[in-house]
């Protein structure tokens, strides 16, 4: 083994972060880049299901909250793209890979936000699950990724709370409102559990990522943590988790839960979820529609520089 590899291994073993200018194995670079690009795309694509409700939020208060939250997601995408760019790739390459279908984003955003209750559910469950994952990733071994996660976790603390609070208002409202909240929970619960990825035994990347300390805890450990924290929250507002096999396991000190439909997961990842084509088409269109702004800014800058020289 050469000395570069040895020095890399030693840093990982000693809980040191890997920084952009350090030597790193190609496979490590590729893996962390894939993970950061996927994470960045998820933040940006994740703006769509919520953006759908800005003009239809039930009150001005809910509308400004939703705007602030979506603005955060855009910012978080930017942090992550920048962290990925420390590895020598460009924003344009990453966006192109997304448009070409070579880069993925979290499959949860391929589900539609059908009612206002879905907005509460996205905050409570989807952001809740993302936070469980991101808290763990604050200790990831790639320095820029870790720092982006710390910043994101700090800013995102309001996302889950506003979602739960909005859900609580519905659950304590009229019979129709409560039914709407329950219906949204029924539709979002399982996709939220899928956010943590395949079981540890079936996960293609987990083993190596854990060795590199890019991932600090496995998919199943994180998923269980999410279930254990969320079930009492649902009970507290009188909503029912749509899982007949869900029960407290005294011995484990955790909830047992039923089997996840991995066929559905694979189908949505492969591009056949309810909104895959729509999400991507919208992103492509937004990119194209914004081209004249970038062109105008560039033209202005060119003119300004020419004036400075003159």
């Amino acid at each position, binding site marked *: 083994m050469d000395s570069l590899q040895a020095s890399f291994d030693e840093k990982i073993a000693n809980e040191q972060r890997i920084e952009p200018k350090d030597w790193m194995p190609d496979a490590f670079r590729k893996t962390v880049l894939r993970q950061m690009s996927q994470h960045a795309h998820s933040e940006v694509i994740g703006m769509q299901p919520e953006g759908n409700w800005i003009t239809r939020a039930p009150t001005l208060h809910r509308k400004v909250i939703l705007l602030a939250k979506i603005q955060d997601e855009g910012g978080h995408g930017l942090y992550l793209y920048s962290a990925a760019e420390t590895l020598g790739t460009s924003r344009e390459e990453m966006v192109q890979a997304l448009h070409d279908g070579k880069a993925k984003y979290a499959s949860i955003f391929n589900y539609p936000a059908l009612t206002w209750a879905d907005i509460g559910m996205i905050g409570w469950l989807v952001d809740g699950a993302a936070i469980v994952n991101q808290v763990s990733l604050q200790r990831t071994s790639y320095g820029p990724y870790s720092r982006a996660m710390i910043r994101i976790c700090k800013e995102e603390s309001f996302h889950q709370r506003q979602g739960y609070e909005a859900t609580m208002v519905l659950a304590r409202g009229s019979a129709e409102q409560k039914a709407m909240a329950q219906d949204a929970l029924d539709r979002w619960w399982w996709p939220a559990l899928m956010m943590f990825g395949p079981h540890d035994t079936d996960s293609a990347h987990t083993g190596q990522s854990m060795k590199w300390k890019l991932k600090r805890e496995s998919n199943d450990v994180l998923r269980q943590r999410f279930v254990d924290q969320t079930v*009492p929250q649902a009970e507290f507002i009188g909503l029912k988790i749509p899982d007949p096999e869900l029960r407290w396991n005294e011995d484990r000190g955790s909830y047992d839960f039923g089997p996840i439909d991995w066929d559905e997961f694979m189908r949505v990842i492969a591009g056949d979820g309810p909104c895959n084509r729509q999400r991507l088409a919208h992103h492509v269109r937004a990119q194209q529609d914004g081209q004249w702004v970038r062109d105008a800014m560039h033209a202005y800058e060119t003119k300004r520089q020419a004036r400075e020289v003159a």
Partner: protein
Amino acid sequence: MKQQSLPLFEIFIRSKRGLDHRHVGSLHAEDHEQALEYARDVYLRRSEGVSIWVVRSSDITASQESDVASFYDPMDDKPYRHATHYKLPKEVDNM
């Protein structure tokens, strides 16, 4: 003898892997390489860091403190950006 003023460089030190580089001060040098060497002598005599960034001060564009009102004012009336804005019963407050 001709008086010549060397360009100013701002010095940033990463004290430990995993942390951000932080601004520690500035110094004069002929070029970036020399600024790096001076920074080592001036700011790292006691192993205060593992990495140095040097940036020409003239390359830094800064906001003005006098603009602070127009920069930050719009944020003051948005308490809903903070987690504490959302009051939850104590049974579920640990979120």
